[in-house]
């Protein structure tokens, strides 16, 4: 069992968790992920590793379904049933020149280790983050500290540019910015839009695909994506891929494979009751 050392909801739906697992903490490189299970009946879900320190590692988790919901309802001191990692290939970290980093949702946290590592290699870092509204922005100070330029975009215009990462990016390029490399992390829709912006300018683009995963070590093929016409497994060949080669339409459809099941899951919601049981009776029944 793996202890949650610290847990905090940074902004609505985004939780920062620090988990104790020495193997992951020792070996994780930027761009790798872990597979988590909240309890024996939960699913196996991938989470990007953001930071490591001594024998713990940090993730930023977006609550968007029943399994992330279970974890969101846990608190520090509780144990996760399974943590396996570090999995996946590390991100490409080299000296390129000027690197553009774009992050949305949980991607704002996930690009932090990439920014840090790329900065250490001597790159000039331009970071753009997006959120629905100003109250959904987090990790701003840490990101500013490793970026040479930093921009914010919101869907409702409450802060920064009214729009998304690609709105700012388009403007920067048209104003004469030149980029030697770009990395985007966020929801599939956002990564697709950003890749489409960099494509005509031939900026080498890498995206971190967040496919559905099951085992995480290449034995099932659940996470397969078409990249450049070939089948790749996101868990062993990725999760970082060339954004201009990814078959986005197919990926979007594959991510929708379990929509109905996701809805059915909510009809039995014992996980919420744990929070209730503890708040009233001071300890869990289970």
């Amino acid at each position, binding site marked *: 069992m793996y202890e949650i050392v610290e847990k905090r909801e940074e902004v*609505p*739906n985004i939780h920062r968790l620090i988990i104790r697992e020495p193997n992951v903490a020792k070996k994780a490189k930027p761009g790798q992920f872990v597979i988590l299970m909240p309890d024996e009946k939960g699913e196996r879900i991938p989470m990007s590793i953001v930071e490591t320190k001594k024998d713990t590692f940090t993730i930023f988790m*977006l*609550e*968007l*379904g*029943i399994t992330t*919901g279970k974890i*969101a309802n846990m608190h520090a001191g509780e144990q996760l049933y399974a943590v396996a990692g570090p999995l996946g290939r590390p991100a490409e970290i080299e000296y390129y020149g000027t690197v553009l980093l774009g992050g949305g949702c949980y991607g704002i946290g996930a690009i932090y280790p990439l920014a840090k590592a790329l900065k250490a290699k001597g790159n000039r870092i331009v970071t753009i983050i997006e959120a*629905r*509204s*100003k*109250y*959904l922005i987090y990790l701003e100070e840490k990101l500013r500290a490793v970026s040479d330029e930093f921009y914010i975009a*919101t*869907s*409702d*215009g*409450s802060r920064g540019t009214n*729009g*998304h990462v690609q709105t700012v990016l388009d403007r920067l390029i048209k104003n004469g910015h030149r980029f030697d490399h770009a990395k985007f992390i966020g*929801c599939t*829709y956002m990564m*697709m839009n950003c890749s489409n912006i960099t494509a005509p300018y031939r900026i080498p683009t890498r995206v971190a695909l967040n496919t559905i995963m099951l085992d995480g070590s290449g034995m099932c093929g659940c996470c397969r994506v078409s990249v450049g016409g070939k089948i790749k497994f996101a868990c062993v060949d990725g999760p970082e891929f060339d954004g201009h080669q990814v078959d986005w339409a197919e990926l*979007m459809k594959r*991510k*929708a494979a379990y*929509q*109905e099941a*996701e*809805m*059915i899951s*909510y*009809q*039995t*919601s*014992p996980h*919420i*009751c744990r*929070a*209730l*049981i503890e*708040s*009233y*009776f001071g300890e869990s029944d289970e």
Partner: protein
Amino acid sequence: MLVIDGKKVPFVEGKTILEIARENNIHIPTLCAHERLPSFGACRLCMIKVHGVPGFMNACTTPAKDGMVITTNNLEIKKLRRAIFELILSEHPSSCMICAQAEHCDKFNSGIMKAGVITGCNTCPNKDMCEVRAIAEELNFKTIRFPIFYKELPIERNDPFFDRDYNLCIHCGRCVRVCQQVEGAHILVFTKRGHDTKIGTSFEKPHIETDCKFCGQCIDVCPTGALSARGQKWYQEPDDRVRTTCMLCNKGCRFEMDVKWGRIVAVRPDPDYKTLKTGICVKGRFCLPTFFNAVDRIRFPRFLQNFKLYPTNWDEIGSHVAELLEAYPPSKIALYLTNFLTDESDYVFRKFAEMMEITNIYTTVEDLTQIPKKGIKVLWTTEGLPGLKNYKTLEHLIFQEVFPSEGYELADVVLPAAAFTEQFGTYYTQRGPMPIQKVVKAPDLALEDWKIVCKIAQELDLGGLNYLDVDEIEQEMGRVNYKQMVRPVDEYYLKYRGTPIAEKVPDFKILLEYRKNRAKPW
């Protein structure tokens, strides 16, 4: 006579302008008005101009007067309406409604994100049914000129059954009105004032600490996703809506149930019956779907071999049961008839007993004390019962139930019964005989209680017990003048057949545990 937008409509005494407009198919947008609730005039979206009166008036609170000439939709009203709606939206997580990418995003994204906190329409369970979104579409809404303000109120999840996110609340007051003026419970009120106004309970107590009955009426009338039933959201449109009568006690309340994926997903009061006014209790409203969808329903007939209960089909089990019953004299056989049998099932069981000359018919736990006195060897029960292992004379137990409740581990033969939501029939209640409707299919091989008796009767070659449907049974009952009875099950009875409802519904367990020192739990 009135003239609304140039159309002549008849005047009706005592009605508001809005009611008359609606009756004559003239559309005026509203958010806080509701046909079951007294008007309130909170949202001001229904602004109209009455000619000859300065300023604008609410259609929902203004009584109509004969001869009024009304304009509902001129340029000035349109501008006002927009501004009002922008004000409402500026304090509601509205990013998705005004995002430039909204249509494109909807096309590509794989459905609603089932987030914990609602930060936009794409994370809201109410998205497909939302009245605010409907108005936004009607007004062709694309921008908000006012600064956006997210109230950052904590999400209230510390009550059983439903969540409250008052960041989405538009203060229409429907929940307050239904709680105070329809239910008469007075749990929800407007608290604080001015910009800090928030709907909630007095002193911000969790509902479980108040006298809230958990009737769910507030959730039914809320136009946004602010109030949502935890286990009954995210299913979008139901496949079917069926109305039936509750059999969890003898009151006979009427329900309307939403069905999706072959399961009951939501329950609310039947809109055409008086239970809409009196409300339905927490057992039916919130516990019923979770209870009957629990995973350990008995689904197959089973027989005991090698210390294990093996599943088999009805033909095999029929011969097992017939052998058992033929091996013993009727004086050594007893039937336990649960109060939760439909009238038809009860009648068929008793007729079967008569034909088999079985006189030991038990209906209460006290009756079980007869077992040692009469040396009963075979007990056929339709309900899980306590203490069966203490009866040393019992050699065989036929267990006909919905769940593996008390006594299951002692069974030789297990017969899967259908729940009341899975069959047709009648149930004689305090409100008289009420119809039971089949809402969903029974799981796998589970059958109506009366059908099971008929199958066994067939194996025993008993004539007169091969009904095709409940109508046949009802007709026979009419012919023989069978007296139906109201069963002694009151509204605070906490089991269905042999299973405590709290065992399958964790939120209900919490409710009972927390309120155990009160005279009544709701």
